[in-house]
């Protein structure tokens, strides 16, 4: 009873307050508490399935081990950037304003076409070119024939060549040999060939 009275003491101290209705003056939208109930139940269901799996959000391997280092690297980089803005290189005053103009003027010089006089008529140029090609072709052909001939000759055995020369040589051949043989070649002949063979040879050939 005493406790109850002490709780109501204030009524005597505030007559103005007592006169004012205790009825709730605040309103809510129509059907608010019904929809609130549904919303809260839905939220609770959502919460109950959320983060069921602890590893729902995976992380790369060693993420936290490397994270400190990456943060420190980033801080260092930004510190350097703050201390040294730019690369320190400078250009002369108004350099870039004149640069475009200077580049364009140099391009214009290079593009100016050279005026040439035609010294030779068209047909003479073409025929000169054709002649050159012809001469080169002949040269190549001859050389290639000799080359091919020499290649073929090198494949023939030495004894066959000797036999051929023996049976088909003439006075002119001997004369040619005498005029063109070298001392070294002569030495070889004189050491490898016997006197008997030499006499036979001389007797068999017609002077």
């Amino acid at each position, binding site marked *: 009873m005493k406790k109850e009275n002490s709780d109501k003491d204030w009524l005597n101290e505030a007559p103005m307050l007592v006169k*004012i209705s205790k009825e709730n*003056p605040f309103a809510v939208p129509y059907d608010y508490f019904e929809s609130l109930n549904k919303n809260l139940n839905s939220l609770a269901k959502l919460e109950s399935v959320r983060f069921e799996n602890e590893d729902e959000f995976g992380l790369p391997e060693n993420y936290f081990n490397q994270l400190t280092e990456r943060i420190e690297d980033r801080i260092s980089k930004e510190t350097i950037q703050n201390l040294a803005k730019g690369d320190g290189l400078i250009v002369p005053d108004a350099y870039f304003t004149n640069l475009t103009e200077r580049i364009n003027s140099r391009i214009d010089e290079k593009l100016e076409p050279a005026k040439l006089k035609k010294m030779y008529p068209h047909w003479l140029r073409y025929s000169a070119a054709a002649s050159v090609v012809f001469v080169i072709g002949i040269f190549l052909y001859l050389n290639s024939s000799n080359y091919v001939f020499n290649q073929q000759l090198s494949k023939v055995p030495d004894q066959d060549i000797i036999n051929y020369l023996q049976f088909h040589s003439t006075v002119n051949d001997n004369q040619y040999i005498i005029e063109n043989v070298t001392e070294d070649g002569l030495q070889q002949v004189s050491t490898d060939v016997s006197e008997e063979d030499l006499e036979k040879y001389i007797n068999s050939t017609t002077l």
Partner: protein
Amino acid sequence: MQVEDSEILEKFSKESTRHEAFNLLLNKYQQKIYWHIRRLVIDHDDTDDLVQDVFIKVWKNLVNFRSDSQLFTWIYRIATNESITFLNRKKLRNSVSIDDANGLDLAETLADTPYFDGDKAQMKLQKAILTLPEKQRLVFNMKYFDELKYEEISEILGTSVGALKASFHIAVKKIEQILLNSD
């Protein structure tokens, strides 16, 4: 007939009946908590957000609730803390002093809200309540409108019964003075 807290807690402890328990809890407490928050923050939309935050916290933490306090005082405490945090954040956002005893910011909200059906006298009363410091306003609302016992308020706010009585009496005197001066 309202369900007992013990039944709610028992059903909540089993996974198969957890949602049923939560629904029972909502039916029992959602309006009380709503009005408790609404009288503090005034605006309906802000209240709606806070009510949802509060009951999601209840859902997450009810499984760990120890019966050393009553269920409704535990929920009230969550609601009170959420509301105070919200008001402090709002003051910072609006660059209003946290010690704003005049509650000018909330008075503006009260004047602008479309969800006020009271008469002139009730408007004066609400404006007068907004002039009180935050904790005094809490005590006044819980004692005057919610008609909670000092012991229950003490459990919610963690303040002694004696301090609460003193706080309430001072609040009543201030409001009375404002109502007298406003005439």
